[in-house]
């Protein structure tokens, strides 16, 4: 497709090793067969978004206009009101606890 929104001047590389590292950081197992297409697609996406790097030079960061929304920190539900419904969704549980494998 032709579209000037795509910056074709820079060619971007995301290596297969980098993809593996990112997937590991994000805790996602990727099959070997997906690595090459991901490397290409991520390269072209990062290539496109890189156009912002040269265009934000003189902008000074200001604190955004945000408003603090405060409320009293009080319990609004009765004890155990949601426990059963929430635990019903757990793949593995024991009494009122979620079960995970030991990490130590």
């Amino acid at each position: 497709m032709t579209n000037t929104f795509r910056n074709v001047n820079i060619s971007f590389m995301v290596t297969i090793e980098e993809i593996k590292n990112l997937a590991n950081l994000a805790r996602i197992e990727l099959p070997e067969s997906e690595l090459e297409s991901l490397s290409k697609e991520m390269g072209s996406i990062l290539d496109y978004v890189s156009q912002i790097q040269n265009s934000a030079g003189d902008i000074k960061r200001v604190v955004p206009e945000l408003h603090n929304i405060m409320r009293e920190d009080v319990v609004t539900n009765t004890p155990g009101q949601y426990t059963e419904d929430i635990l019903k969704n757990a793949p593995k549980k024991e009494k009122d606890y979620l079960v995970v494998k030991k990490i130590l």
Partner: protein
Amino acid sequence: MHRMIDLNSLTIKEAREKLDNKEFSAVDLATYYLKAIKSKNENINAFLEVYGDVLEQAKIADEKISQGEKLPLLGIPVALKDNLLVKGKRATSGSKILEGFVAPYDATVITKLKDAGAVFLGRTNMDEFAMGSSTENSAFGVTKNPLDQERVAGGSSGGSAAAVAGGMALVALGSDTGGSVREPASFCGVVGLKPTYGGVSRHGLMAMGSSLDVIGPFTKTVSDSEILFNVIHGEDVMDSTTFKDGTYPRKPIKEKMVVGVPYHLFKNGGLESEAENNFRESVKKLENLGYEIQEITLPNIEKSLAVYYILMPAEVSSNLARFDGVRYGLHVEGKTLLEDYLKTKGAGFGKETKRRILIGTYVLSSGYHDAYYTKALLLRQKISEEINTIFNEVDVLLTPTTPGTAFKIGEKSGDPLALYVQDVFTVPANIVGIPAISIPSGEIEVGGKKLPLGIQFMAPHNHEHLLFEIGKKFKGE
């Protein structure tokens, strides 16, 4: 019983009158829609689930009507995007990773709709976790456009748009992070509203990009959009980004509104020539209605898409970390806890979701954070300044909603970027947080089929009333 209801054109206004005058009951109305879903949904795939208690809900509405209760949506059948929580119902966000999940509470918008008397028909198909512009990224198959089944219904709220356009729901809710209500509305020939950021509570909406997400309605008319917006908007203690009534003071509607058009965006935005002709006709129509059209320049708006495709995946990578197979949804067993995570996410997430999590992880990782994420935040600030400043000169902004009509299923699925550019006109409103509405602006003939196009109006924060005013005039409502 009234047998001549045209479900494809029925509005809330009309249904309200007929329900109140007992021309048909809420049970009749719900039955018509259930029949329409039964005959059409197998092809269109708009609904992932039709609730089992639709007629019971309608019966309760009928009892209230007979008791003379007056509620804006009493007995009105509504479809819900699959990322909204309804207590006791399943919700999957179009993903395999939420297999078996049952919502433990109602989203705030659901509570508001229930209080207004709505009847929920079911949950609609969507791109997985709202990531996409065609509903092709759903784990449960694509939604077809009811106007041409070879084409997409748009996305990510494609199921909701198709349900309304196909006469399978009177109205529907979707969510809009970068155009996910407006683009499918445009592709399906219906009205889609993206309210002001913080104007509608997201409590109970599955988060995608938390600084961008907002819930919005699909309707057949602008008047119905206003009715639905009035029901769902407002401050909520459960969502601290919702704002109070006085936060953005509302300007009154002027006698002669000025409409700003950033024509420079069209050239580089890939606007197709027939769509451009349609847009120019709409501009002429507005001039004839007495609006003043002013060409404007927004120097940095063209960077919006790049800014969006940095900030959004960054927020996605953080928000989707919660799906770990421990508390809810899919769980794939490994040898260690780490393996459980790796295998669950690997099996549960689809390709586009994985891609965006990886991009988000990349732009937030040390060494790249300043070059991408921080720069994108700065440009977001600049774009916001430019748009907020232009509203001193013009009352609303006008663009096409999309570069063209609905495209064919599979046409763009091989190239993520080709799909991303669909969002070029819609993302600025999310970046800035302002409200925007897509309104049908006519049809063009493509391959023997008439396909709709839409125009988009944008207004300052909390100025939805300007969008409804000009939208109703434009549509002659």
